[in-house]
């Protein structure tokens, strides 16, 4: 690898900012109908507001998250999918005060592979939903948040 890891990350970060901008713009346009989803206080409502359609579990959605969070304030998660025609990826933390954490719009021709960090106050199921060809597919995992200490 000719580029060292630090420069790769810097490149990604710069690219990330650009992608971020492109994600933000449609968000402003869509604000009217996503606000309700992001403000919903239970997962069923949040999902219904954002997706408005049934979600089926799929092995083609990969959700990487730790079994136990090292720090509940920044829990790293990665969502990938090998499915064709992925349009969006959203993340829900069931026991958070507002369960919908993020929605990523995936432009056509882009790898469906996103990473982010979640803030979690307590142990909860984390669900990733992939929208592909107008349908919704999900993967879930329970992430334990502990007060720590007392280890042997």
């Amino acid at each position: 690898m000719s580029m060292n890891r630090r420069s790769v990350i810097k490149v990604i970060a710069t690219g990330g900012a650009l992608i971020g901008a492109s994600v933000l713009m449609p968000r402003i346009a869509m604000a009217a109908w996503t606000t309700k989803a992001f403000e919903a206080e239970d997962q069923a409502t949040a999902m219904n507001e954002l997706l408005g359609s049934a979600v089926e579990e799929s092995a083609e959605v990969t959700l990487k998250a730790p079994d136990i969070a090292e720090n509940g304030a920044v829990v790293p998660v990665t969502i990938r999918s090998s499915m064709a025609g992925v349009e969006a990826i959203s993340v829900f933390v069931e026991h958070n005060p507002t369960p919908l954490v993020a929605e990523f719009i995936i432009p056509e021709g882009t790898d469906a592979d996103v990473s982010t960090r979640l803030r979690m106050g307590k142990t909860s199921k984390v669900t990733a939903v992939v929208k592909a060809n107008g349908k919704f597919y999900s993967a879930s995992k329970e992430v334990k948040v502990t007060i720590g200490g007392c280890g042997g």
Partner: protein
Amino acid sequence: MTMSRREFARLLGIAGAAGVLPATGFAAKKQTGDLYEIPNSGNVRLLHMTDCHAQLMPVYFREPNVNLGIGNAYGQAPHLVGEKLLNHFGISPGSLEAHAFSYLNFNDAASRYGKVGGFSHLKTLVNRLRQSYGTENTLLLDGGDTWQGSGTAFKTRGMDMVEATNELGVDYMTGHWEFTYHQEEILNNIKAFNGEFLANNIYVTEDALFDGADEYIHDEDSGHVFKTYSIREIGGVRLAIIGQAFPRTKIANPARFIPDWTFDIYDSEMQELVDTLRSEEKVDAVIVISHNGMDVDLAMASRVSGIDVILGGHTHDGMPQPTTVKNQYGQTLVCNVGSNGKFLGVMDLDIRNGKVKGFNYRLMPVFSELLPADAGMAKLIEDIRAPHYQWLNEELALADEVMFRRGNFNGTFDQLICNALMEVNDAQISLSPGFRWGTTVLEGQKITMEHVLDQTCLTYPETYVRPMKGSELKLILEDVADNIFNPEPYLQSGGDMVRVGGFDYVCDPLQPIGKRISEMTLDNGERIDANKMYTVSGWATVGAQSDGPIIWDVVAEHLRDKQVAHIDKLNTPILKNVAGNPGIDGYSKIK
């Protein structure tokens, strides 16, 4: 395997017979050769130590009488105690071996057989086992928890143990409590270590990479902070050794000392590594030196294929034989070799054409009186300790019963600590972590400052006193209970239950989190109210540094004042749903 087992039992039987002589006669010098001379087999010998917790000197160490197995772990190694453990492994009751592996008749047997461990005695045993097999075909692996647990390790920030393991000739190690020093200190210690420090499951955080961590980490592309594996040509084969550090270090211990690093269990990465080592590096066998803890190792062995042997630690389980775990492509042997320098695992492997064809395993108790001290190591230890003798050797109080820690719930020494916290820090309730380290003091022995340090010495020793609601107290107990009794091993952290002073409770390990703890009741009989405030004292806080006095000073003050260490009441819980569990013995409070 049956042969070697019988052979070992016979040899130990000889020493056992010698043991019936009066204590003064148990130098038993004539027997030393017999006890530790074992037949050679195979082409590679792995010597395995773990979790010595910086115990350079011989100690007493009592095995637990409560080590409950929940779910699939019920009745399985390592969750066996007392006679259940002896029966499972075919060990004769009353033998020297029975004393080494179980808590039974501890005080009498320990008085008779003497102390265990000590690096100068361990050195003699290691030398003997290397020379008799051919030093070039032998490796010594250390599972970690080596740099913490004594006053001298604390004063030298673990460096005394780096010197001692160099003198011992450790080839490979991984870690856990090693990470309770500061990042730079850890890196410095590793630089001074003559062997290789391996960990495939520690990555640098991306934030740290931005701040220049790429200057020191092992692999900038993968993000591995340390070398992940090593390949060794030995006994005519290629051997891969992978390091697996304690995956919950930043949860169980202060994250603030190691802000740039992140730990976890990465099964798919481990599988990829094992596959690559076999297909591209063409290794004949794969060994993992692990600090996962035995339950996690057993689970990992079932989920990852292609590892031949996991040399495990963390949970301090002295298992006389490995557990064989079947997995997709074959099987994995999982060992665990106790703590505090008490045991040395000896794994002779017959490796041919990319396969482990057979093995012979013995877990050797290191009886200090049966192994003469190695002069070079004894001199090094003397040099390390001499500047601190006055501190270490102070006699604080007389123990009027065996003082120990190890077990799922309060040991007697924990109760001393809890009582000291309540009295010296003037609190209604006290909490003390369920660590598994800490040595044992026999009845009638003087408790010294060194004994107190054995139980308390870590790098975040400040105590606290603070008001806490009853509901908060319950939350803490529930959280810790889930760390030990959750049936999913990857959700356990490997410690024991938090020790408590000033109140009792009822615990049902079979319930889920939130439902295990009930009927919390103060020593005066008053039920703890979820909405009432209580004054609670504790120590070893992982979040932020506390501002109270140092725990060993608190305990020492209490003991000096008492002169006789006596336990009026042990705050162990009443247990539900554990009657008949082979992981509990000699425990009266079962509902």
